[in-house]
């Protein structure tokens, strides 16, 4: 018994120690609990909220693009798509089989669907097919009881109702590529589209709007339990273009299958009423996604349907440049109104012989007739007397050689050559022969059709700078940015010189000797004025010249001359300017002038500026001198 007392004591002592050990360990637990739940509580609360709260972006509807009269050019279309929620089907494969009887599902598509199903959690909807038509939607809805887990969903996709007609101006939207990521979380939304070309690209930020957000509570598997908070986004702004869609469409139809570029301007406001580059492409197909074959066809087409030829096509202006040379010569005073030059069919400079387009020459003619009949020898002489520097300066004053900053990507500056340029770019001295060539708008000289239209508009409006404008307005939910007041800046061209040029241009079309007489507008009051141009794209050898220059129709397409025409109308009180370039179209008078005639006549009959009266009133009538034009 004693012994038990002894070990009982030892037991009690050690038990108390053990209890003390337990208390120590419990204190450690309490300390840890205090650390986690009091000291670090805020951090863990944040982490818990991060766990359960998911921010979902609500993509804003993309802003519409409308023409000057409010006609929608780019809008959002209901896009019916069919989704599959794997957990709601009894058997994914069987459901796909029954669905395949309603809408065709290819084997590649099927593989993609099954892959998506595998990849996502079973409550995440998988898109089976987009852009369903009404009939397909109806058939799926009717068969819904046999298609568990299949549902129709309405999304929005970009739609360009005029397709090819305005493709180069509007551009297109397409899926976001990695280099587009700018930090805007919207761009990371699957299926989000951004503007990749044209107005869609230039005004992408305005059209895009800003995304809303929805805070949702999710569980550990990502399933949404409820919405906690919602912030509506800002829908994209509406962009109004200066384009008159009816005129645009008329123009493209008129071009048929020519490879051509046409720009129609309002000569006072600089509004681009029509801008057509042909052939074109369907911007809707970029939104859908192009197949490799379609893409190859677009890229390899020699007529370059993807290029906007009106701003990115660079052409020698040819005879349409002669007004510029004449103005430079008049300004320098190397000729007077009454000066005459004899054309024998060619002129000589050193050993070289420079030919007129008319083999046997025009005989003796003055400035007006030189333009009317487009005599080359007259302008060789003029160029020789004026010098390249003065010609180049005038070309630049009229808008060539620099970008006009119209609201489109990919604009080219063209080229106004000078001796300095040639030394820099080609490391070669300037020859006087090159001055002569420049005098008839050929050689190194390059201009875009838009530049030609701007030049023409400036001649027609009395010598005021025309800044071509494509964006009329950007409307942010009612608050219109409004038309920017057009500021009139003079080019300081003597009115008399302009009058001479305009008189000549009128005669080109309206006098029987004019190169475009056959393309005149006969309706009284709608008459146009203009200038033809025919640009060689190949060198004519001496042998060929002696045996007779080949006719265009005998040449392969790519060797034929470019046909150009610049003009304005109505002739007595101009309102519209046009530039037409038909690639390898043959003659300016036979090919380009009739196109310009039809477009200008249509423009006047439509009167594209008709709702623009309030703008027109702000602009004082340009001081067209005298009444002696008619």
């Amino acid at each position, binding site marked *: 018994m004693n012994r038990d007392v002894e070990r009982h004591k030892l037991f009690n002592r050690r038990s108390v120690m053990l209890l003390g050990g337990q208390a120590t*360990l419990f204190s450690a637990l309490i300390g840890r*609990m205090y650390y986690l739940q009091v000291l670090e509580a805020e951090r863990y609360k944040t982490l818990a909220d991060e766990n359960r709260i998911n921010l979902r972006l609500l993509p804003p509807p993309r802003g519409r693009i409308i023409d000057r009269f409010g006609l929608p050019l780019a809008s959002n279309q209901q896009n019916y798509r069919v989704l599959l929620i794997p957990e709601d089907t009894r058997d994914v494969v069987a459901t796909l089989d029954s669905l395949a009887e309603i809408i065709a599902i290819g084997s590649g598509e099927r593989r993609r669907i099954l892959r998506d199903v595998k990849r996502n959690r079973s409550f995440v909807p998988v898109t089976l097919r987009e852009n369903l038509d009404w009939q397909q939607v109806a058939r799926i809805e009717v068969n819904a009881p046999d298609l568990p887990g299949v549902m129709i969903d309405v999304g929005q996709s970009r739609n360009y109702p005029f397709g090819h007609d305005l493709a180069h101006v509007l551009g297109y939207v397409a899926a976001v590529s990695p280099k587009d990521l700018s930090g805007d979380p919207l761009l990371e939304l699957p299926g989000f589209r951004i503007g990749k070309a044209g107005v869609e690209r230039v005004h992408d930020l305005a059209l895009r709007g800003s995304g809303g957000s929805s805070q949702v509570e999710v569980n550990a598997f990502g399933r949404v339990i409820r919405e906690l908070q919602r912030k509506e986004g800002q829908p994209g702004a509406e962009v109004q273009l200066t384009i008159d869609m009816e005129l645009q469409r008329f123009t493209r139809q008129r071009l048929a299958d020519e490879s051509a570029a046409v720009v129609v301007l309002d000569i006072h406001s600089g509004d681009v009423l029509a801008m057509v580059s042909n052939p074109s492409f369907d911007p809707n197909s970029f939104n859908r996604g192009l197949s490799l074959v379609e893409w190859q066809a677009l890229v390899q087409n020699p007529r370059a349907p993807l290029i906007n030829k009106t701003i990115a096509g660079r052409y020698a202006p040819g005879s349409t440049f002669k007004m510029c040379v004449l103005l430079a010569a008049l300004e320098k005073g190397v000729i007077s109104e009454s000066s005459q030059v004899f054309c024998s069919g060619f002129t000589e400079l050193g050993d070289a012989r420079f030919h007129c387009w008319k083999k046997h020459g025009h005989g003796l003619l003055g400035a007006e007739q030189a333009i009317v009949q487009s005599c080359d020898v007259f302008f060789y002489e003029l160029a020789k007397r004026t010098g390249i520097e003065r010609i180049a300066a005038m070309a630049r004053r009229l808008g060539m050689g620099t970008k006009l900053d119209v609201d489109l990507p990919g604009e080219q500056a063209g080229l106004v050559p000078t001796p300095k340029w040639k030394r820099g770019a080609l490391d070669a001295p300037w020859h006087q022969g090159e001055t002569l060539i420049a005098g008839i708008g050929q050689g190194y000289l390059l201009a875009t059709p838009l530049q030609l239209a701007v030049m023409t508009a400036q001649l027609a409006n009395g010598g005021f700078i025309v800044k071509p404008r494509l964006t009329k307005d950007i409307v942010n939910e009612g608050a219109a940015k409004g038309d920017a007041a057009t500021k009139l800046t003079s080019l300081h061209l003597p009115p008399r010189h302009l009058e001479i040029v305009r008189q000549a241009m009128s005669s080109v079309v309206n006098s029987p000797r004019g190169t475009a007489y056959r393309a005149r507008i006969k309706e009284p009051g709608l008459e146009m004025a203009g200038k033809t141009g025919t640009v060689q794209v190949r060198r004519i050898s001496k042998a060929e010249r002696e045996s007779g220059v080949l006719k265009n129709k005998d040449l392969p397409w790519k060797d034929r001359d470019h046909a150009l025409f610049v003009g304005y109308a109505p002739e007595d009180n101009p309102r519209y300017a046009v530039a037409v370039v038909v690639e390898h179209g043959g003659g300016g008078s036979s090919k380009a002038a009739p196109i310009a005639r039809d477009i200008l006549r249509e423009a006047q009959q439509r009167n594209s500026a008709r709702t623009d009266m309030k703008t027109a009133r702000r602009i004082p009538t340009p001081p067209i001198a005298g009444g002696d034009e008619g």
Partner: protein
Amino acid sequence: MKEDSLNPPEFTFVQKFLNIHWFLVFFICLTAAIGVAMLYSAANGSFQPWASRQMVRFGVGLLVMMTVALVDVRIWLRFAYVFYGLSLVLLILVEFMGFVGMGAQRWLDLGYFNLQPSELMKIALVLALARYFHGLNMEEVAQPTRLLIPLFMVFAPAALVLRQPDLGTALMLVMASGALFFVAGVRMWKFAVVIISGLVAAPVGWQFLHEYQKQRILTFLNPEVDPLGAGYHIIQSKIALGSGGLIGKGYMQGTQGHLNFLPEMQTDFIFTMLAEEFGLVGGLGLLALYGLLLVFGAIIAMRSNSQFGRLMAMGVSVTFFLYVFINIAMVMGLIPVVGVPLPLVSYGGTAMMTLLIGFGLLIGVWVHRDVTIGRRGGDEV
């Protein structure tokens, strides 16, 4: 008085029943009630599937506990080695014919229920060691050779359990036994020798750990290494605890638990859920309740007039403590994730039954506190 009387006439049945430590029983029921409430919350406010079954189990367990408490401690002493031997045989059987559940071979299919012999062993080992040390006087305890048999009694089942593999249970067996060696009077320096040699042997033992056990220890040391993989449990558990703050998010309002971020919240991580919904206050409350039960356990042990009763009571109490400590330390990221439930609260029948049998023995020691037992189990002094 007959030397081998199994039900000595000192106490009548009614006296024994009145002698039951009703205070302890009350606190056991209170703890279990908290568990049921948490299971109700874990099922998003439903008695199905956990809370109702837990209540039934606890009810059955309570009856078993009372029955065990009323059995004379001398009977437990007499059959201690038999229970131990039986448990060891079952553990060996598990090795050959047990089925695999949750990645380890732990269960024996006994027709209408599944038996986990490692749980039985927790009780049987306490009984066997208590009987062994009961038979030794102080001088004998001091002889190192006398410790070989109890050491074998500990390490044979521990090795078998480790092979299943169940690191948590093996550790509990070893640590509970260590505590019994300690209160039985084994010299301190011997523990120091064992602990130091254990530390030396640890790198060798590392080789024998299963890949998932190594992974758990590595993950414990740096859970952020693999936040969606093995570290997920600990990270989410800490977030749940921490975000509970001082007073918690409210009953059934725990976001971590109810949105499924918390793994196994009805079993091993139920303390996390409680601390998320009731905060530090709730966690401390439950800890205080456990502390109270442990103090009662120690008092009962020290009050017993027989070394066997003392050792048995202390063994049960220490086992209970180990459950509590390992589980809570695990969910708070203090020790690696080992599958040990929170006693009386976690969902699960096996641990509940082990614990209630243990508490039955504890209360039995209280009921028979004045019974003295001879060295060989008789009434002789």
